[in-house]
């Protein structure tokens, strides 16, 4: 069977902080409709790999390509195709929840931004907080807003770093269902997670990072 063209292609990725090599020789191909879960203990390099994938950190060696384009954080094509929720998300302190989503939807050229914002706002259950400023949101609500910023915009690849963090049980269940739906619609997903239920439900492949990257399960 002919393999699908990869949305994400990582070849021999190496990243070290000083003398400590975090990840070396990491390669990965993710096609549309695939969901990859990176697991491993704290410090195994999951977040570092994800940061390299989105261009937030520069790899020491190896290449990362999205749809054949070399990843650079400042490349508008990459910014258009890759939606991320990693640890460096920031918010405008003077814009409310709904204004953040409205701005992102319009910036991405969504014609009916109001309807899209309403839908996502209901989905992440932030309707009562729509007028609140980010500094007054709880950590769980901030995580929901971060996820909403990824879901409001067009995307071909979704990169998530421990998306279940700070979500309540219902929230994790909603997230799992949403990611499964996204995957079925043809989105490529790469996520790091410590939640076995989420991983089991969403991932088509699980890679455990540690001393050596290891493919644990393949759907």
């Amino acid at each position, binding site marked *: 069977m002919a393999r699908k063209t990869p949305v994400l292609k990582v070849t021999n990725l190496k990243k070290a902080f000083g003398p400590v090599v975090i990840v070396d020789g990491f390669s990965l191909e993710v096609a549309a409709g695939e969901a990859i879960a990176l697991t491993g203990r704290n410090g195994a390099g999951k977040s570092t790999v994800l940061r390299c994938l*989105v*261009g*937030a950190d*520069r790899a020491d060696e190896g290449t990362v390509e999205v749809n054949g384009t*070399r990843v*650079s*954080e*400042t490349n*508008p094509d990459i*910014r*258009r195709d*890759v*939606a*991320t929720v*990693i640890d*460096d*998300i*920031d*918010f*405008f*302190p*003077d*814009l*409310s929840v*709904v*204004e953040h989503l*409205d*701005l*992102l939807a*319009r*910036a*991405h*050229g*969504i*014609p009916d*931004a*109001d309807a899209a914002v309403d839908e996502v706002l209901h989905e992440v259950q932030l309707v009562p907080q*729509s*007028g*609140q*400023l*980010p*500094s*007054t949101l709880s950590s769980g609500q901030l995580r929901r807003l971060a996820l909403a*910023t990824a879901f409001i*915009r067009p995307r071909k690849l979704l990169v998530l770093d421990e998306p279940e963090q700070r979500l309540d049980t219902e929230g994790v269940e909603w997230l799992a269902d949403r990611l499964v739906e996204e995957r079925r619609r043809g989105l490529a997903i790469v996520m790091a997670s410590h939640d076995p239920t989420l991983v089991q439900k969403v991932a088509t492949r699980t890679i455990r990072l540690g001393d050596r990257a290891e493919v644990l399960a393949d759907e």
Partner: protein
Amino acid sequence: MSKKSRKLIRSTPVAGEAEAEVEVEAVVPAAPERTFFFLPDAPPLEVDEHELHGLMKLWRHGRATRSIGQVLQDSYVMLFSVVMIGAMVVSVVLRAQGNMAGCSTDACASGRLLVPTAMVLACFAVALGVARLFGPVLASAAEGFWLMDAPISRRRLLRGRLVLPLLLSFLVAGLGTALVGALSGLAWAQVLAWSCAAALGSAGLVSLAASEQTRERVVVVKVLQAVFAAAALAVLLVVVSVAAGWLPTTFVAVAEPATWLFAGVAAAGLIGMVVLLQLTVARLEEIRRARLVSGGSLVAGMQGAMFALDFGLIRDILVERRMAEKGHVKPTRGRGLGLAALVWRDVERLKRQPSAFLGLGMSLFVPYAVDALRMSQLNPFISGLALVAGLVPFLGSMRVLSRTGGLARTFPFKTAQLRTATMAVPAMLALVWGLAATPAFIGIASTGADRSLISGLSVALVTSLAGLMGAVRWVTAKKVDYQTPMMATSSGALPPGLIFNLFRGLDMVVLITAPLILQLPAYWSLVIGLIVFWALRGSFNMADLQAEQEQAKRELAEAKEGRGEKQKIPRPGR
């Protein structure tokens, strides 16, 4: 163990302490298998807050690795430089005072009296604002957690905390006003009266803010702050009006009574400070922990930013705090698609920050005041700096999109496009500012600038461009990178970017206005300004260029290796 700590630990026991100790000793050996035990029923001992404070001080000193003497010894070159520069500044001030005192025109006479007066009023407004922001009585989060729950007297623990804000307001206001007074050409007796009024008045107002803090009220402080700020602005307006000849000059006649008026203000400030301090100290017992700790945590955050000389981060902390206090806004719908949506959102933001317009409006007085003070040669530079301060609040979007990559990554635009879009509204404001400031650059005072309309307009527009670029540089400057090789200095190893952080914003204003100060044609400044604009909008991304260079090197090396392998293929035998 030091003598002092022995003394603190072996403090004289109060009645009942000996019995309590005996009880504790008796309980512990009786149940050695227990992993915990309940507190004995003995009544708690009375705490001496003075000794507790001394103990905390001792612990803090115990963690210091160097004494003050050693620190001074290590940084003697810097101290020597500070003394040298200070001596030069004092010399320049003395000479300027002599020169300005010799000027007898109407504009000089009004400026001499009114500019220091505006400074005194501004000092009052700033003292109240800063006092309200921090407390002025504050406690660290650790003190709030560990000490405020303990059965100790808050009044006795906190009364010493009032000294530092009072001293700071006294010194900063006094020295600042003395400098402005001397530069304006006031006689030394008048400089003393104005400085004492600013110093003691500010200290008195900080006492008032402390008194209001104990009652958890802010209305009086806010109203007074607004009144003093408006009064300072009105006085500056009078300076400009007199210099422009719009108001008659009668200020020379009131110089003598004004000196007595300011001496009276100083006396009132002193009396107010003493009375309000007594009231505040009496009420410190009732002050809530949350009200104390919020100022302490703000100071801790700002201290961290100060170590990196990151003033942008300090502003971020203040903005975040203000927004947390605000909490909620009435959402507005966006307009347009793509970059237009970003620009429109900035337009909407203008409605949410009326106070920013006050700052921009105040910066507009600077070119007029500088011209009235006969310093038209330096006007583009000084006014450019004032405009930097006025425009920074309008560059909030650019700041957030520059400080971390996370939010910028969510927008499908190049960095240069994002920066240009977020610069659009501030650029319009700078343009309006330039047009409104044009008369000052043409020359309003008889002794000020004397330019044609075109020349004045071009200087005003170059100044507004310099202010805009300075503000953009200020908000987009990168944080200090502690991973780069350090620079050896007399104060120890420092990252190279640390010192340059002090001059960010200022550097662009100097660069763009330098040709004007050197009396070169304005188009030189315009050309430099356009180059600066091209660089600051992110067209020149050093990190990307370096990455491309590294990538090219790597590919070249791989290609060479490939060629090398080809050469190793043995030729077929004959």
